[in-house]
């Protein structure tokens, strides 16, 4: 599988009479783009607002943050399988992306009716989280949607995400026919070397248990969110958005994160140099019986062995009992002789629990991204000067009934970095 990714950096966005990319400037004809989005009868209103880094602005009811990517040549579409998009296998041919820009999808519509399906995500362009999280450094184009409330949750959610992907398509298509300023080829030729083979195991929560639905909106694999056995993916599939979708804060990932996953990037950079990148195994977490969690771990480890892996890097997107599948996968790999490195955050001291919900002796090589804040204190976020996307915000993600004005200053618990995207550093002592 060979994928050429052409990158078109976006240094500025201007609203104008046409939608086009030229010399790092994305011009947007907002009325034209919004008219297309409003053709969906489920969408009652749609607005576009630009959020710039360091502006004291907050966007609430955020469901996803997406990098515009478009398939220029080769099978399938970027962000496949979700919201009725074709689910042909992706990862080959040519893809164009707009870097430095993201579409932030905001709509007052839950992911699904049920625990953790609520809208507790927000995006600040200022303050301590914006300083360390990747989204604070991007030009964020907020698509704020009002969806027909008489629809069931799944239809409302589908309408919102479909609109956001449609906008991404239209923005990324401005690059078709242009020569990309940057280009990189992603390919895993069999090197025949004696380098150790390494797999990346990415653990992704399924919303099936909490939603009671086989197709609830969430981060999907080709749009599929139900509990499924482990998947074998080529890393190029991730670059084309095969793992993507909206979610609440109970998944640490966004579509932007999964297409810019630094673990995939680093494994590619070291391919043929200090290891051979053998592939990606994606597992679903939050099975509800011990046997299912065990089986998921055994099968993930088996796939890794079939790929000839000597090592596995393991990361995950959601805590709680999901962490069992993560740890059991570490154990299952180690027992098959596959060395593992786990990337994880830690629970903060005030949780009064252990730093990791579960620990096993086999997990003896762990990269910690810490408690999600530089010191012992909670992050203090000053009040916003401007708020978009709604009047209220969840006081904490664990108590959805408690709402506060959306511009409120906050003592934010922490920002969890589960993919190594943060810019905090630490020292050993």
């Amino acid at each position: 599988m060979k994928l050429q990714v052409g990158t078109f950096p976006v240094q500025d966005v201007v609203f104008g009479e046409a939608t086009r990319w030229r010399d790092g400037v994305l011009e947007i004809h907002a009325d034209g783009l919004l008219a297309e989005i409003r053709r969906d009868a489920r969408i009652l209103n749609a607005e576009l607002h630009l959020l710039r880094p360091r502006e004291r602005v907050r966007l609430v009811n955020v469901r996803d943050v997406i990098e515009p990517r478009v398939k220029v040549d080769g099978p399938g579409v970027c962000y496949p399988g979700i919201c009725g998009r074709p689910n042909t296998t992706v990862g080959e041919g040519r893809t164009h992306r707009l870097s430095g820009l993201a579409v932030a999808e905001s709509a007052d519509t839950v992911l699904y009716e049920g625990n953790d399906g609520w809208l507790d995500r927000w995006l600040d362009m200022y303050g301590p989280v914006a300083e360390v999280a990747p989204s604070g450094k991007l030009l964020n184009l907020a698509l704020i949607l009002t969806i027909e409330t008489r629809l069931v949750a799944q239809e409302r959610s589908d309408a919102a995400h479909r609109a956001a992907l449609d906008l991404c398509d239209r923005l990324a298509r401005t690059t078709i026919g242009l020569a990309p300023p940057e280009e990189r080829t992603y390919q895993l030729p069999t090197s025949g070397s004696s380098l150790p083979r390494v797999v990346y195991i990415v653990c992704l929560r399924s919303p099936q248990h909490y939603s009671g639905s086989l197709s609830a909106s969430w981060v999907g694999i080709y749009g599929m969110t139900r509990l499924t056995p482990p998947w074998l993916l080529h890393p190029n599939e991730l670059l084309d958005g095969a793992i993507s979708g909206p979610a609440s804060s109970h998944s640490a990932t966004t579509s932007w994160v999964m297409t810019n996953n630094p673990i995939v990037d680093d494994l590619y950079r070291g391919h043929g140099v200090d290891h051979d990148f053998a592939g990606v195994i994606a597992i679903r977490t939050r099975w509800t019986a011990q046997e299912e969690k065990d089986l998921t771990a055994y099968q993930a480890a088996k796939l890794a062995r079939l790929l000839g892996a000597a090592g596995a890097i393991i990361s995950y997107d959601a805590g709680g009992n999901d962490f069992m599948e993560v740890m059991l996968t570490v154990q299952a790999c180690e027992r098959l002789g596959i060395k593992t490195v786990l990337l994880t955050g830690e629970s903060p001291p005030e949780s009064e629990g252990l730093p990791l919900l579960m620990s096993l002796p086999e997990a003896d090589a762990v990269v910690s991204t810490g408690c999600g804040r530089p010191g012992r204190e909670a992050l203090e976020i000053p009040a916003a000067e401007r708020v978009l996307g709604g009047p209220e915000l969840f006081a904490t993600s664990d108590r959805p009934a408690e709402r506060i004005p959306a511009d409120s200053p906050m003592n934010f618990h922490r920002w969890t970095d589960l993919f190594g995207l943060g810019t905090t550093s630490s020292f050993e002592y």
Partner: protein
Amino acid sequence: MISALHAIALNGGAPRVIHGARIEHVCGNPGLTPEMDQAHARQIVLTACAAIQTAVTGPTLFEP
């Protein structure tokens, strides 16, 4: 402790852990007839009663 996810209970140091069914119904099985479900639940509880009278030296799993 009766747990659907016994690995985490054992890992957390619970001395006696009884293998429960699943998160949605730890101590029963709604797929059974009411009589069979009651017998199944009773078996789990009786296992727990026996476990609490059993000396253990560390986290131990009991199968109903």
